[in-house]
Structures are given as C-alpha cells and as structure tokens.
C-alpha cells in the first residue's frame, strides 16, 4: 500500500467513518453493490420479472390452463380478445403461460441452487479445511454421486417418494452441489495454509469458527460466480426432467417446457418460441450481471 493510495482513501474513509461503524461484510457488500449500475438494473429487472410471475397471472383475463375454444389455433396477439401475446397451438394464453412458467422456473432455479450452495459450500469447506480422512470420505462420496446417472437417480427418487414438486429441487440440488463442493474444496486447500488462517488458529479460533468466518467469506467470490452459472443450468435441467415426465406436468408449465413446445412450432409461429425465450434470456443475463456485481461487492479491495 503506497502512502499516496492511503492518503486518497483517508478522505473517503473519514467521510464515511461515522456512518459505517459496526457494519458487517454483508452491509458493506450491499452498499458497494448499489454503486454498480449493471447490477442494480439487473436486480430491478429480476424483481419485475419475479413480481410479474407471482402476481401477473391474477391480473390477466385468461388463466394459463384455459383453452379459448373459439380460437383453437395459435392466435396472433389481440388486445380485444385479451390474448396480449396471442395463444399457443391449442389456444391457451401465451402470456399467462409464460408468467406461470416463470414461477416454476424461478422457484426451481433459486431453490435448487440454494440447496446446492449450502450443501456444496459446507462439504467443500469442511473437506478442504479438516483434510485427512474426513476429506477422503467426503470426496469419495462426491465421486460416487458423480457416477450415478441423473435420470436414474431421479427415477429412484420418484419410485421412493412419488411424484412431487419438492422432490425436483432436492434431485437437482443433490446433483449440482457436487461441482460446487469440488470448487470450494480447491479454494479452501489454497487458503488453509495462508498465514491469516494460522494466525486465527494461534489466537484461539475453533475449527468451525475459522471455517465460517475466515474460509467461507474468502471463497464467496468464486462461489457466487458459480452460482450464477448454476441457476441457468438448473432451469434447463428442470425442462429436461419435465420432458421426461419427471418434473412439472401439463397443463402446468415452465420456461424450459414452453421453449421446447415453441421450438416445435418455430416455423409456423415463431412467437411461441420467442416469448418464453426472451423472458428466460433476460432473466439469465440479469443473474449473470448480478452475480458479477456481487462478486465485486464482496471483494473489499475493489472499492
């Protein structure tokens, strides 16, 4: 740290000194995130899409599973009929279906990723930090899980517990945490011999305390990036499972399913592909920008 650099930071620090007392890493990160324009815009768009998905269907004249028998063919957008973005090939309102599909896709995407995040970070950090036999056992278990084919795994779950929406989160979460734990373990291994970890041990830190306060916050940057890559993956995985009849069932739908259906009709009514695809693409873009923003915000050197 050069003195010039220090001096320039003093001014800023002085200004904010009174107001930042006792702020945690998270409050700090939030403040820094709000300064990132792309991340803020993404956050707003995501919130709008989320709200539309949750509340939108109630405000529309047609429900997602209602067939407009007078217009059984795919109908172009029409304001007077209440089909603002037209209907699909069996006459169901496309906008209503897309919004309802958004509920499913966003829920699956966020919850399954959260499951993967929690299990993956915990397993990875413990395996990497504790090392030795614990590491061996946990990582061989991960290898074992890698070798089980996803569809086979999901079918077994279905047989055991019946078809269940919750099961899908678990199934996807159980697969996605594997890579996460490997990444976190690798990061932890490179951190555990750093001097500040040794210093933490020398000042009497417990294993759990060091993992939670010194290891996990330091791997978050990488983890957040991986999360933003996982959410789209999970949304697509859901549509794959649904396609196999293991996920959500008609007439309930998801973005992945809508895109599948739309792709089949692409040459006749490209609209049925584009509408869900635009929603999904915008969402995934926003998740990526937001993830980038969060990563930057979590790095104190980046302010």
């Amino acid at each position: 740290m050069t003195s010039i650099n220090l001096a320039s930071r003093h001014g800023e620090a002085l200004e904010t000194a009174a107001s930042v007392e006792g702020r945690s890493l998270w409050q700090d990160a939030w403040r820094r995130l709000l300064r990132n324009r792309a991340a803020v815009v993404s956050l707003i768009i995501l919130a709008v899409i989320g709200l539309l998905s949750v509340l939108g269907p109630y405000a529309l004249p047609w429900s997602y599973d209602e067939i407009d028998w007078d217009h059984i063919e795919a109908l172009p957008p029409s304001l007077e009929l209440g089909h603002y973005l037209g209907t699909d090939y069996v006459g169901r309102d496309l906008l209503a279906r897309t919004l309802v599909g958004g509920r499913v896709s966003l829920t699956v995407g966020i919850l399954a990723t959260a499951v993967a995040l929690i299990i993956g970070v915990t397993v990875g950090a413990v395996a990497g930090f504790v090392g030795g036999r614990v590491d061996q056992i946990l990582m061989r278990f991960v290898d074992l899980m890698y070798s089980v084919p996803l569809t086979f795994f999901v079918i077994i779950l279905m047989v055991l517990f019946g078809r269940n929406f919750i099961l899908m989160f678990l199934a996807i979460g159980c697969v996605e945490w594997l890579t996460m734990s490997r990444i976190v373990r690798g990061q932890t291994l490179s951190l555990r011999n750093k001097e500040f970890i040794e210093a933490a041990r020398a000042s009497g830190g417990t294993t759990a305390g060091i993992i939670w306060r010194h290891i996990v916050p330091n791997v978050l940057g990488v983890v957040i990036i991986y999360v933003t890559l996982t959410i789209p993956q999970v949304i697509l995985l859901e549509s794959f499972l649904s396609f196999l009849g293991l996920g959500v069932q008609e007439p309930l739908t998801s973005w992945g399913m809508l895109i599948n259906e739309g792709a089949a009709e692409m040459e006749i009514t490209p609209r049925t592909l584009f509408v869900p695809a635009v929603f999904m693409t915008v969402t995934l873009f926003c998740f990526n920008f937001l993830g980038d923003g969060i990563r930057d915000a979590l790095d104190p050197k980046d302010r």
Partner: protein
Amino acid sequence: MISVPSSPVLEIKNLSVQFATPEGEVQAVSDVSLSVNKGECLGIVGESGSGKSQTFMAALGLLAENGTAQGEVLLNGVDLLKAGERKLTAIRGNKIALIFQDPMTSLTPHMRVGRQLTEVLMRHRGLNATEARDGAIAMLKRVQIPEPERRFIMYPHELSGGLRQRVMIAMALLCGPDMVIADEPTTALDVTVQAQILDLIREVQDTLDTAVVLITHDLGVVAGLADRVAVMYAGRIVEQGGVRDIFYRPNHPYTRGLLECTPSLDQVQTGKLLTIPGQPPDLQNLPPGCAFHPRCVHSSERCLAERPVLSAASHNGQKACFLSEGQVSP
C-alpha cells in the same frame, strides 16, 4: 494459577519434534529445554531451519499435520502437549499469543481490522460487542496507532505494514496474555518501522510484565530487546545465557560466527562481509558428533566422534562445545 514473580511462565523440557516427509523422518527439534520467566524477554537465535519457530509451534499444538512432538511444555505448570484441542483453543490467543512474521498476510483480508480484534475478545473474554469494541480501540491506542477509531473500521489492505504489525501486536495483547511469542516480528518491515515496533514490544513488556519470546535471526534485534538468549543450531540449543554474556563472551564457535557475520561500519575498511563457511546441515542426515563440526574452524577428532552436551559455560549460561571460552575467542 498465579505465578510468583521470576518463576517460569513457560517451561519446555526435553522437547523433540519430528516431521514425517516422503523422504523420511526429519528431526526438526532435538531435546530442547528452556524456560521463560515472568516479565522476561528470551531471544531465540538461529539460521533458517534451526528449529527455533517449530519449538514454539509445537508448544502451542500448531505443528503441521505431519509433525509430532515429545517432551513436556509446562505453562504455569500445565502440560500443553497433553492438553486437548479444546483446552489449547482456550489458551491460544488468551494465555499465549503469537505475533507473526508477515503482517501483510496475517490479517484476514475481507474482514475489518476492528472485527478481527473484537472476535478475540468476544471469544476469550465473553464480552458483548460494545465492550469488545471499547476494549479493542483502547488496545489500538495502547499500541500507539493514531486515530484508532478510524483504523478500527478499515480493512487490512488499507493499512501500512507498520500499522498492520501494530494491529497484530494489539491482537496479541488483547487478552492480557502471560506470554507473547514474537516470531520474527520485524523481518518484513523496513528499518525505521522495525525500530518503532521493537520499542513498542519493549515498552509493552515493561508495563504489562508479559514474558516475551523473540524468535529472530537478527542479532541486532536480540541485543536491543532480550534479557537472555538461546542460540539454536540444527534443532538443538548450542548456547544460552544472559544477553551481554553471549554477546561479549561467546562460548560456542557458532555463536561467535554469528556475531562476526553481523555487518558493521568497521568492515567498510576491510570491504569484506564475513560468513560462516558451509551450509546448515541436512536435518535428515546430520553429521556425526557435533552437528556444527563440518563448519567449525576449531573442530577436532573428538567433535566428530562425540556430541557435546549442554554444560556450564564460563558465563553463567550453558554451551554445547568441548572448547572453553578462551579457545573460541581469538
């Protein structure tokens, strides 16, 4: 357990440390015994790999996974080598604190300095956040950090090396430890800051009556701070005694060699920097007899056949050499 003044705070008896490596076992510390009294500063001197750091890492149970230690390490009479991890956790940072070599990497980068200090107080002293904050700021003031309230909310990378080392010292002193182990506390700092940090350690030691172990290879640092000195070579203590005795009347050729290696202004005339010829020995493959004999100018047949044990030296300390003071000094 209150220690009587001048009774040993820490007593190490016959401590040995080995590391299992793929190439075989490495004997890092062999049969080291030493004690540190209350309010005293013990300097541990030696080349890299002489086992000076590992002696104290073993004492705190902080050896690398492949390391094992035998012997006794008594802190106020309690054997630390036999204590469980839970007990050690309660002792580290509380009764014994460590100051590390490199302040640039010893603070967690994503955490504000204040938080790292309060964490120690909250864990060991059970203080609440406000009390811990007051305690931490008071300690920052104590180690002469200007504007402690402002530094409190800064991140480590926003502080200079000297300030960070002060923060590390503050952290070490937070719980009022019986003993502070400073492992090369000034090696990573520039000279002017070095002097300030040494002054600080001395001042703190005087006022708080803390025992200090100063691990260093810088004899100048030892001369300025230590009351007693132990010189280590190849995992063993080769000479120990009062700082003046060691400096003015070295009984061991290695100590003498170290002293001669210290550059001084007089050498400007000769234009030559003295060194001890040869390399520190391979710990897996120690020479027979005295480990120092291949590099020693006075070595004889006996040095090769027999390992000298620590015995009374001409000053009031001990030496591990067959020669007497007169034979070592020219």
